[in-house]
């Protein structure tokens, strides 16, 4: 029993050591960049990361994707992040206020809302006003999260009151409820409709211009390699990053 406990203890200690060793290799040629990014940029950033690695020998880009406010909370609590890309300015402002941002945040993309329905559009939704139809099951994001805040702005601008059957936690939850056919329509980002392909039908509406979500990116204070972190943010804002982002449906900031 004692031997087992000792072995376990050793194992835990060793695991701790190797982890440390991996994180601290900043002086050698091998470098790892930890990028914390909003869930909605996952596909685009994964590709940007690959291209950045190809262009920079010995650099590995590791991503953590999640809700922007979750990511801010993790960074505030000391998560080993070098770069933060937020889905809205509010969460970047939070990070700046918490004094975790090293550089100056730069806007790298923008995104607008689009109506999403199942492929056969069972409730015949053709406009934003149609979302207020009686009997149409509409899901939106809760106003507490960025996509819900955008939805609220669009509603206000159009002078409409949508009565959703559910206010979801994230834009992917809204998309999931529409893809599964539980909901007749939802409000998601243009990029989500594009990403879901044939599983959904998208309906654009002119009022979407009234709520443009801007995505800022910044290198973080205490980044392992501040130059590399700044280099990555410039890469995202620059022509290479922008061309990848536009293929995923993001608009210029």
């Amino acid at each position, binding site marked *: 029993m004692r031997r087992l*406990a000792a072995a376990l203890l050793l194992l835990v200690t060793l695991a701790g050591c190797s982890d440390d060793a991996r994180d601290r290799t900043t002086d050698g040629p091998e470098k790892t960049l930890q990028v914390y990014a909003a869930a909605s940029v996952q596909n685009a950033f994964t590709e940007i990361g690959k291209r950045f690695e190809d262009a920079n020998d010995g650099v590995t880009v590791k991503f953590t994707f999640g809700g922007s406010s979750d990511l801010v909370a993790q960074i505030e609590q000391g998560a080993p992040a070098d770069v933060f890309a937020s889905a809205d300015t509010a969460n970047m402002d939070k990070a700046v206020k918490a004094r975790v941002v090293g550089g100056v945040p730069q806007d790298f993309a923008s995104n607008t809302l689009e109506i999403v329905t199942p492929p056969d559009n069972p409730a015949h939704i053709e406009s934003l006003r149609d979302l207020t139809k009686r009997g149409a*099951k509409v899901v939106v994001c809760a106003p*507490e999260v960025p996509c819900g805040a955008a939805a609220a702005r669009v509603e206000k601008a159009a002078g409409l009151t949508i009565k959703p059957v*559910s206010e979801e936690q994230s834009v992917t*939850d809204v998309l999931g409820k529409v893809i*599964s056919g*539980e909901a007749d329509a939802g409000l998601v980002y243009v990029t989500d409709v594009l990403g879901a392909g044939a599983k959904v039908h998208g309906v654009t509406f002119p009022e979407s211009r009234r709520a443009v979500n801007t995505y800022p990116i910044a290198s973080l204070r205490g980044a392992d390699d501040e130059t590399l972190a700044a280099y990555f943010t410039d890469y995202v804002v620059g022509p290479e990053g922008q061309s990848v982002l536009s293929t995923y449906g993001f608009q210029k900031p």
Partner: protein
Amino acid sequence: MSLTQQSGVPRWVLVPAALGAAFVVLPLVALVTRVEWGSFFSLITSDSSQAALWLSLRTSAASTLLCVVLGVPMALVLARTTFRGQSLLRSLVLLPLVLPPVVGGIALLYTFGRKGLLGETIDVLGLQIAFSTTAVVIAQTFVALPFMVVSLEGTLRTVGERYEVVAATLGARPTTVLRRVTLPLVLPGLAAGAVLSFARALGEFGATITFAGSLEGVTRTLPLEIYLQRETDPDAAVALSLVLVVVAVLVIGLVRGTRSTAL
């Protein structure tokens, strides 16, 4: 240290045991230190908090009732009969205990959802389950039912069949035996099972958010409200978390109470 040792527990065991206890207690202490006491009362009495708490209590009570109605017969069948495939059935019934709740939610969606297995039947009956409070109760019952079955089946086996056999030989019919002998004997186990089911229903999150959605007063229970408040108002999330912790402590107290009268 005045530790009364009944059997020889080696002293070194105390160290990992104390570590384990600290591991459980420390996060709760940390939570309490983060509570903004000045605004605590206003945070937990806001309209959305009240709606979430009230909804949680209502749905948890309803699912506990369902757990009693469905779980007691299930425990009786599992404890007092033998049939082929019984152990397989028992394992299946206990599955929600170990299943990630989000998986349960997806499974429920494909059962009771509009496009689900029973979707059309439900539609014909004119019922709407998706995005309704009923969906919340279904999700909670799904995850809480095994607690009832496990707790009661254990008690039934511990109590044994002696008195039931005696009652039967004295001419009591099966229903009378159940009503007058079995149920009074296992009442503490039943009560403990009900309290555990209630607690599990109250804490349900994954299956609910996957299956029922989230709308104030309809489907947004307290755990969902806490998860949402975290986005904008961490203080409110902490305050509401503390409310759930207090409820959980009360529940454990209740279970211990019923257990100790059973012994």
